[in-house]
């Protein structure tokens, strides 16, 4: 039955509702259970998704497609959601609005999951908006915190703008093809190809997705929002909703608008280079770790975007694989920052910059597990071997060379080298700079979330075969025939 194929989404929705309703009846002190409930729901959904790996189906009047690509990204989103809910247990501790936090997070996840399996532009747009709207409120979750509010405001305004741009683009595509179904758009792309409106809609859609992926120049909100939002939410944004942008772009450009390949390849080539360079260069001088991670996230987005330029099955597989790795690395890094922020705030409630890099001084002594995990994450982001980041770069960059884009690979490699500077700076602060403060106990849920992320970062780096295999399977959805 069709609904069975949507079991993961339904599970998440039901969990979200359950959390919301149960939360209404619980006193503030015992709302911790909601976090466990949410995590449990995500775990079940994850299990359902994994168990259904390999199924292929087009359901609900061909508006939803279950295939390797959507399954893969669903797993990415669910894993990020899992990290989010686990870390959220600690973050919402003592908070009276725990149920909103988890429900919004879970609903955002549903949006992302539907984007991954959308086979119709309407589904895609609505799901996209779901993921956006739910996270606007999450970004401003700390209502008393001017930074959090400002982050939400910027996120919201730029988000609305890009939604409008995207809608405009979709309307033109609809006008030119007479349909919103992704395969049919591809089949009727003649007008788009022959008219200037094709280019305009491509750019408008790039602006829409680029907002989520945080491509320069549509990235402007990202550093501010990642910095201002609660770290756990930043993790969801950077690791989850960014991937949603990528999968949407995969679907729309590579499947629907393959006829306009030349246009968007050029666009992505320009944007990839600008994005990775800008992200890395600006990240060099950041003092706020979260802002630094935000810029690094830009850079990583730039790398993933290379897949659109190269457009070989391996490159796409590499891009998809990179998205998975990046989910773990970035989510882990933000959660580690959340742990540090928590530690700083519990020592000094009025601390203005809890994520300032000075607070990472001597972290190796103060919070050994957090520091070690953070080291793994930043080294993975930098692409040090035996981590997921290295494996991803290996596949993606190597395929770039294969396709003959040597210049692009060189730029990416140089960027990768620059990035080492600011990643190593974090390690330097954590291990080499002295501190007077003492060892503190590390918040357990954060630790669990970080350890899960570390395990996956290392596992993907070390035992990559299954992950690579599934990423390549997913890439075959985009370009049938495969390698």
């Amino acid at each position: 039955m069709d609904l069975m194929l949507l079991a993961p989404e339904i599970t998440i929705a039901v969990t979200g509702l359950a959390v919301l309703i149960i939360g209404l009846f619980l006193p503030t002190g015992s709302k911790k259970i909601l976090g466990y409930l949410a995590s449990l729901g995500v775990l079940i959904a994850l299990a359902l998704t994994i168990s259904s790996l390999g199924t292929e189906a087009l359901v609900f009047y061909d508006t939803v497609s279950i295939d390797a690509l959507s399954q893969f990204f669903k797993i990415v989103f669910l894993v990020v959601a899992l990290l989010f809910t686990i870390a959220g247990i600690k973050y919402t501790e003592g908070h009276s609005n725990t149920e909103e936090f988890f429900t919004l997070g879970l609903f955002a996840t549903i949006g992302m999951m539907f984007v991954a399996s959308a086979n119709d532009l309407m589904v895609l747009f609505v799901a996209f908006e779901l993921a956006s709207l739910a996270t606007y409120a999450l970004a401003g979750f700390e209502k008393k915190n001017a930074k959090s509010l400002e982050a939400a405001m910027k996120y919201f305004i730029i988000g609305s703008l890009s939604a409008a741009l995207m809608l405009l683009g979709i309307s033109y595509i609809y006008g030119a093809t007479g349909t919103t179904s992704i395969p049919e758009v591809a089949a009727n792309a003649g007008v788009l190809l022959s008219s200037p409106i094709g280019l305009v809609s491509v750019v408008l859609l790039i602006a829409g997705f680029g907002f989520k992926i945080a491509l320069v120049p549509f990235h402007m909100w990202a550093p501010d929002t990642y910095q201002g939002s609660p770290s756990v939410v930043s993790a969801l944004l950077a690791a989850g909703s960014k991937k949603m942008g990528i999968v949407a772009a995969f679907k729309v450009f590579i499947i629907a608008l393959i006829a306009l390949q030349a246009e968007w390849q050029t666009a992505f080539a320009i944007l990839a280079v600008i994005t990775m360079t800008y992200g890395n260069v600006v990240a060099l001088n950041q003092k706020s770790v979260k802002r630094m991670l935000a810029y690094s996230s830009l850079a990583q987005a730039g790398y993933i975007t290379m897949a659109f330029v190269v457009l070989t099955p391996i490159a796409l597989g590499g891009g998809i694989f990179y998205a998975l790795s990046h989910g773990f690395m970035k989510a882990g890094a933000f959660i580690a920052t959340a742990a540090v922020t928590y530690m700083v705030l519990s020592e000094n409630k009025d601390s203005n910059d809890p994520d300032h890099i000075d607070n990472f001084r001597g972290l190796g002594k103060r919070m050994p597990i957090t520091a070690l995990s953070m080291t793994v994450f930043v080294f993975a982001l930098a692409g040090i071997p035996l981590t997921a980041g290295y494996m991803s770069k290996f596949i993606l960059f190597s395929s770039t060379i294969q396709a003959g884009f040597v210049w692009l690979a060189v730029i990416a490699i140089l960027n990768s080298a620059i990035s080492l500077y600011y990643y190593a700076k974090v390690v330097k602060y954590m291990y080499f700079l002295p501190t007077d403060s003492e060892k503190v106990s590390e918040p357990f849920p954060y630790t669990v979330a970080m350890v899960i992320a570390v395990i996956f970062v290392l596992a993907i780096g070390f035992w990559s075969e299954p992950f690579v295999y599934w990423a390549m399977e997913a890439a075959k959805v985009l370009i049938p025939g495969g390698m």
Partner: protein
Amino acid sequence: MLNKEVSFTPMDVITSVYNYLKPRIWGMILALLFLSVIVVSIAFTSWPTMDQLPQNLEDQSYIEGIGVLIFTEFVIPFEILSIVLLSSLMGAIYMAKGDDNK
């Protein structure tokens, strides 16, 4: 106040126009740029549309058809929309409500 003599010199007009435009000029230029890009593209596109509107007005806007579509082909977006509404409701209430400790 009413009796105050109000007089404009041409310079005042220019100044006030200038002052009005100064912070907005870039916005205008960019909006016009965007507009021209879009309009040019629209103009140079041969839209694959019907030659004329349907004779029957009901074919233009057909509520029953829309309803059927919503509950068949576009049931999934519709369902998602329900979640969107719920979450924006929650979000808006959460953001808008005052300090619950008070």
